[in-house]
């Protein structure tokens, strides 16, 4: 009992630590991949091949002066970045990232890899990510600047619109798996069809996967849907007036949200930690590989596609993505009913 509790606590701490690392590594990966795509090296001076660049970035931001505009709302201005990053970390709490393990016989009963395992896990993630928008909206409003306000307004409209498609795409997978627990969803994807094709839901739900990924990009405010920041029109959007640590928390929240989005996509569509060649105890390696591939796609998209126009974003969200998600859900429900009856 005691040991089990300590191990569980250790897993939670490790998850938290890895999320912080993920946000630092993603900053580096983003700059390196961007450099590669633009035929230059990217950061190269700090450490071997610029590997220590994230540390330098963080130190630089910590040393900066903290500014607050005169007309800003003191409390909400401080609260906004904290809310953003708290929601980002909390959303990962119910994401499982590895099979159940006894740590090579250390424990009598297997323990699950992941901070918490609850029976409505998918919904909890969705609920907490939907709280993330408050950080951005409040930052935009409390800064008392027109650019920030525009960014905040855009964020609220955009995230509400794309949340619908996102949730509808998720619902189709939940119908297939018949469970709201992420661990059960992952475990229902074990095995393979015809001996070679893994039983991942991406093959049953290709349209759902595409909708999920597009809505995911919009939910995390990444290019080509980065309207809340839109530097060519809004200076820097909702975070224009922020500096120092308060500013640093916003990109950190964004990178952690990206990680969560990729982890959930891996769990729901790509079979989580299930994969060939590796024994189940090392499934987390598969998990990392899959997350890495999705994150690379995120960065790839950002540096290859130009930003949409704002009205195009709304049109696309409501007139194409959401109807497609609803049709996908209805067809899935009908097929599940037909094959289960």
């Amino acid at each position, binding site marked *: 009992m005691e040991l089990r509790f300590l191990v569980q606590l250790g897993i939670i701490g490790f998850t938290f630590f890895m999320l912080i690392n993920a946000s630092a590594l993603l900053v580096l990966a983003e700059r390196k991949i961007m450099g590669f795509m633009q035929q230059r090296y990217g950061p190269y001076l700090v450490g071997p091949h610029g590997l220590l660049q994230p540390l330098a970035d963080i130190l630089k931001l910590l040393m900066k002066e903290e500014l607050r505009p005169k007309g800003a709302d003191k409390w*909400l201005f401080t609260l906004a970045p904290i809310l953003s990053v708290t929601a980002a970390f909390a959303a990962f709490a119910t994401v499982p990232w590895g099979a159940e393990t006894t740590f090579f016989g250390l424990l009598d009963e297997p323990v699950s890899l992941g901070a918490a395992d609850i029976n409505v896990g998918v919904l909890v993630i969705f609920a907490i990510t939907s709280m993330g928008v408050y950080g951005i909206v409040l930052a935009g409003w409390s800064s008392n600047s027109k650019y920030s306000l525009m960014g905040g*307004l855009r964020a609220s409209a955009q995230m*509400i619109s794309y949340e619908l498609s996102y949730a509808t795409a998720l619902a189709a997978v939940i119908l297939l798996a018949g469970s*709201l627990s992420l661990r059960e969803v992952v475990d229902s994807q074990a095995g393979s069809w015809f001996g070679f094709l893994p039983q991942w839901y991406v093959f049953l739900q290709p349209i759902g996967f595409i909708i999920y990924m597009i809505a995911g990009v919009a939910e995390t405010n990444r290019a080509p849907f980065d309207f809340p920041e839109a530097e060519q029109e809004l200076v820097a959007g909702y975070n224009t007036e922020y500096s120092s640590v308060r500013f640093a928390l916003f990109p950190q929240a964004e990178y952690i949200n990206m990680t969560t989005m990729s982890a959930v996509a891996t769990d729901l569509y790509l079979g989580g930690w299930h994969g060939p060649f590796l024994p189940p105890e090392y499934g987390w390696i598969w998990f990392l590989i899959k997350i890495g591939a999705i994150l690379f796609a995120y960065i790839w998209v950002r540096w290859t596609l130009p930003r949409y126009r704002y009205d195009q974003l709304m049109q696309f969200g409501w007139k194409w993505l959401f109807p497609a998600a609803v049709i996908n859900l209805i067809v899935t429900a009908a097929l599940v009913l037909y094959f289960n009856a």
Partner: protein
Amino acid sequence: MLETLTFWGLSGLAILASALVIGQRNPMYSVMMLIASFGALAGLYIQLDAPFVAVAQIIIYAGAIMVLFLFVVMLLNAPQEDAAEWDRTHPLRQPGIMRFGGMLAVLLVLQLTWALLRVNGIDVPVGAEGDSEALGSVRTLGRILFTEYVFAFEATSILILVAMVGAVLLARREGDR
């Protein structure tokens, strides 16, 4: 012991936040307090072994509806409530209207008391009767919603649809038909 403490903490937070929603002048803070109140309610639902209802509360109320509230408050961009509210000549401050409002408030309190007095078995813990596993499950909830309470469910959806159509009608400009 811990359960009682959490219960009092959460209910205290819910009541305090709800009081602050109407208790202070900045509409932005009112919205934030309402979100806090919804969060506390969600915590109480979790204590009642209803995680699905708790999560639905957060997704629908705190995650979607309150974002729209914020959107409206931001668009109005009014840091303080309109001073006209405190004006004696405001149409809502006429004595007749205020008496009518007071009567409605008393009626609400009476109704609530009557409803609370009619509840049986309020001292029986939730999940003590029947299968507590099935009680909290989404499957059971969905089945009950679409069989026993299907009329209330559909009536509510039509009500919301009517409100939506009304909002579209009101927001429409005079020119475009």
